[in-house]
C-alpha cells in the first residue's frame, strides 16, 4: 500500500443542479465565475460543481440560488471536481451517483411546484401527505385490478 496525500484538503464541494425553463447550466456558470473568488467552478450537463473554502462556496451558492430559487437545488459532494476516482472522463460511463440524481430529477418538478405553491398558499391549510407507516387496507379498485390481472 502506498501513502495517500489528499488534494484540496479543507475544502468543500457542492453540486448546484438546475431544473428550470429559464436558466441553463451555462447561465449559472457565467454568474458563478462573475461572483466567485478562489473557487473552482466546473460546468456540467445538469448544473455546476463548485469547490473551495466552505464560507466562499456557501456564499456563491446562496447568490446562485437567488437567480431561480425554486428550480435550483444544492447538495454536498465528497470528491472534488474532476477527481480521477469518480470523473467519467477517467472511468467511462456515467459517474457513480449520477443515476441516483437522474432518478430524483424525475421528481424534482413536483418539488419545484411545491416550493412555488407554498409562496401563495397557507401552509397550515395544506393536508399532510400519505404516511408510509399507516396500515394500508386493500382498496376495492386495487382488488379488482388484481383479480383481472389473475384472470387474463
Amino acid at each position, binding site marked *: *500500500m*502506498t*501513502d*495517500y*496525500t*489528499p488534494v*484540496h*484538503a*479543507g*475544502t*468543500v*464541494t457542492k*453540486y448546484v*443542479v438546475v431544473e428550470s425553463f429559464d436558466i441553463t447550466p451555462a447561465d449559472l456558470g457565467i454568474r458563478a465565475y462573475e461572483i466567485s473568488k478562489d473557487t473552482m467552478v466546473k460546468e456540467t450537463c445538469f448544473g455546476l460543481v463548485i469547490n473551495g473554502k466552505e464560507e466562499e462556496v456557501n456564499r456563491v451558492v446562496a447568490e446562485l440560488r437567488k437567480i431561480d430559487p425554486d428550480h435550483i*437545488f*444544492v*447538495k*454536498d*459532494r*465528497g*470528491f472534488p471536481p474532476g*477527481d480521477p*476516482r*469518480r470523473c467519467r472522463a477517467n472511468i467511462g460511463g456515467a459517474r457513480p*451517483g449520477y*443515476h*441516483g*440524481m437522474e*432518478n*430524483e430529477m424525475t*421528481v*424534482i*418538478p*413536483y*418539488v*419545484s*411546484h*411545491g*416550493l412555488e*405553491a*407554498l409562496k401563495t*398558499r397557507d*401552509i397550515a391549510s*395544506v*393536508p*399532510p*401527505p*400519505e*404516511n*408510509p*407507516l399507516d396500515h394500508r387496507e386493500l382498496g376495492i379498485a386495487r382488488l379488482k385490478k388484481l383479480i383481472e390481472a389473475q384472470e387474463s
Partner: protein
Amino acid sequence: MAKVFIYPATSLILSDLVSRYGHTPLSSAVAVRERIQTAGLESPPLQITPEEPKKGLRWAAVEVPAGVRGRMALYGPQIEAAEAAIIINDADLSFGCMGCARTNELVKYLLRQKDIPKLDLYYPKSEEEGVRFVAAIKRFLDGLGGKQ
C-alpha cells in the same frame, strides 16, 4: 440548527430542502469527504480502509458481512449525531448490491430505534403531492427550531 439525517443519504431533494430551511443535512457525501480529505494509506476509490469494518462493529455484529460493517462506519456516527431524521420510504434509487440493501435496512432500523423526531414520506407523484411533500418537510423542520 439541527443535524438532520436524510434517507436516502445521497438524496439531492432532501439535502437541498434541509439546508434551504436552515438545518444541517447529514448525507453520505459528508462522510465520504472526511475520508477523502484525511491522509493515510491509499485505498481507492472511497478511501475505505480495513479499519472501517472494525469501526462498524459498534453498530453491527461480527457475523454481519464486512461490506455492511464498512458502510456502517460511514453512517453509524451520523445516526448517533442526528437530532432528527427524514426517511423516504419508496426510494428505489438506494437499491444496490446486498451490502447496500442490508445497510439500508440497518440504517432505517437504527433510526426507528432512536428517540428523535422522524418524518416518513413517499416521493411525490403529482403536483399536489409535491405541495404536500414540501409543506410536510417545512412544518417538520420548523418544528425543530433553530435558525430559519
